[in-house]
């Protein structure tokens, strides 16, 4: 949304006004933000007012979706083709995760009756968010960028150059998480409507049998709560992902700040003593955060759907 736009403006300003001095803030924002909409990776036409151009984050989303689709379909197909029921290899891991999501997260919240209806959505959420989070943590694109810089020598502004300018986490973009939370918002309404009927679901939002003055207060609060829950989901996921990246990049930029202050040797010293060990530590923390955030998003969605199905009033 609009945090992202401001970040993009800062990133654009960083690219334009990059004369000599190292500016930590602008460099970091440039790495975290999406590529600017005026210079996308692939230029596509605008259809019905929607710009379909592929930016860095859109490219990462497609990459995650394609990878997950191929890997999971391949694993399940291979398992279904074999003649014994015991899974082997990576299928073991997949099955463990699927069972964990279904039995520990969805079933206790949604209930036995609806678990088969909502488990697929939760699994999709979990794997997609986990994949998108993790792929931002793997520096494949930065390594490929080095390869490009020293071996391939592609032209300035080419597709390869643009893609390889730092891999990014698609879930650190507020637009992506807002879209995911919109699905949650819809799922809550669909779940309530399926369980109680379209009219009863809306009446379930407030408790029955209270004095009428209370409803004047209660109905606006409940309607606000309906929108606040997906909003909180949006902010939590995106801010967690952005925050971790900013922390790592800020610590790594000490190297350049110190090098600017006291020469190259000082910079290398700061890197060896402080920056690199700290950045490694925070990267380790990020692995936990990545797992926890995928878990939290899925769990909270399951809880909200469960709240729409089992009304406690």
């Amino acid at each position: 949304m609009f945090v992202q736009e401001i970040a993009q403006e800062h990133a654009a300003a960083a690219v334009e006004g990059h004369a000599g001095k190292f500016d930590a803030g602008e460099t970091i924002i440039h790495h975290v933000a999406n590529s600017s909409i005026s210079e996308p990776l692939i230029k596509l036409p605008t259809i019905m007012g929607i710009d379909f151009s592929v930016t860095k984050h859109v490219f990462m989303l497609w990459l995650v979706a394609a990878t997950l689709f191929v890997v999971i379909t391949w694993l399940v197909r291979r398992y279904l083709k074999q003649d014994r029921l015991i899974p082997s290899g990576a299928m073991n891991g997949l099955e463990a995760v699927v069972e964990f999501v279904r039995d520990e997260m969805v079933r206790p919240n949604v209930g036995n009756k609806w678990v088969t209806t909502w488990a697929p959505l939760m699994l999709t959420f979990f794997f997609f968010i986990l994949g998108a989070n993790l792929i931002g943590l793997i520096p494949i694109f930065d390594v490929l960028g080095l390869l490009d810089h020293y071996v391939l020598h592609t032209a300035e502004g080419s597709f390869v150059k643009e893609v390889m300018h730092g891999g990014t986490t698609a879930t650190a973009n507020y637009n992506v998480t807002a879209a995911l939370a919109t699905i949650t918002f819809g799922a809550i309404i669909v779940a309530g409507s399926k369980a109680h009927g379209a009219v009863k679901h809306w009446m379930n939002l407030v408790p029955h049998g209270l004095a009428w003055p209370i409803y004047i207060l209660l109905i606006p609060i409940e309607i606000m709560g309906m929108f606040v829950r997906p909003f909180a989901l949006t902010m939590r996921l995106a801010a967690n992902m952005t925050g971790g990246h900013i922390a790592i990049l800020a610590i790594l930029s000490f190297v350049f700040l110190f090098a600017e202050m006291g020469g190259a040797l000082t910079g290398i010293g700061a890197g060896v003593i402080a920056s690199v060990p700290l950045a490694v530590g925070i990267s380790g923390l990020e692995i936990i955060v990545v797992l926890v955030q995928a878990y939290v998003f899925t769990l909270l969605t399951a809880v909200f759907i469960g709240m729409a199905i089992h009304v406690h009033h």
Partner: protein
Amino acid sequence: MDKIHYFGAAIGLGMIVIGAALGIGKFAAAAAESIARQPSAADKITGAVNLPLFLLEGVAILAEVFVLLIVLMK
């Protein structure tokens, strides 16, 4: 005076951290204590602590986003 918004953002960030740390500390203390009293219910206690913990984290993160907005928008 044109950089005074950094001051507000820094103070806000500090206060967020104080609040979130107090909240998480209380959760951790209560969870550790109750697990010590009843080790067999550890799973249930962890499950019950998890959800409010994430809600707390969400509030703190929201506040941090607004601090970031203060810095970026001036």
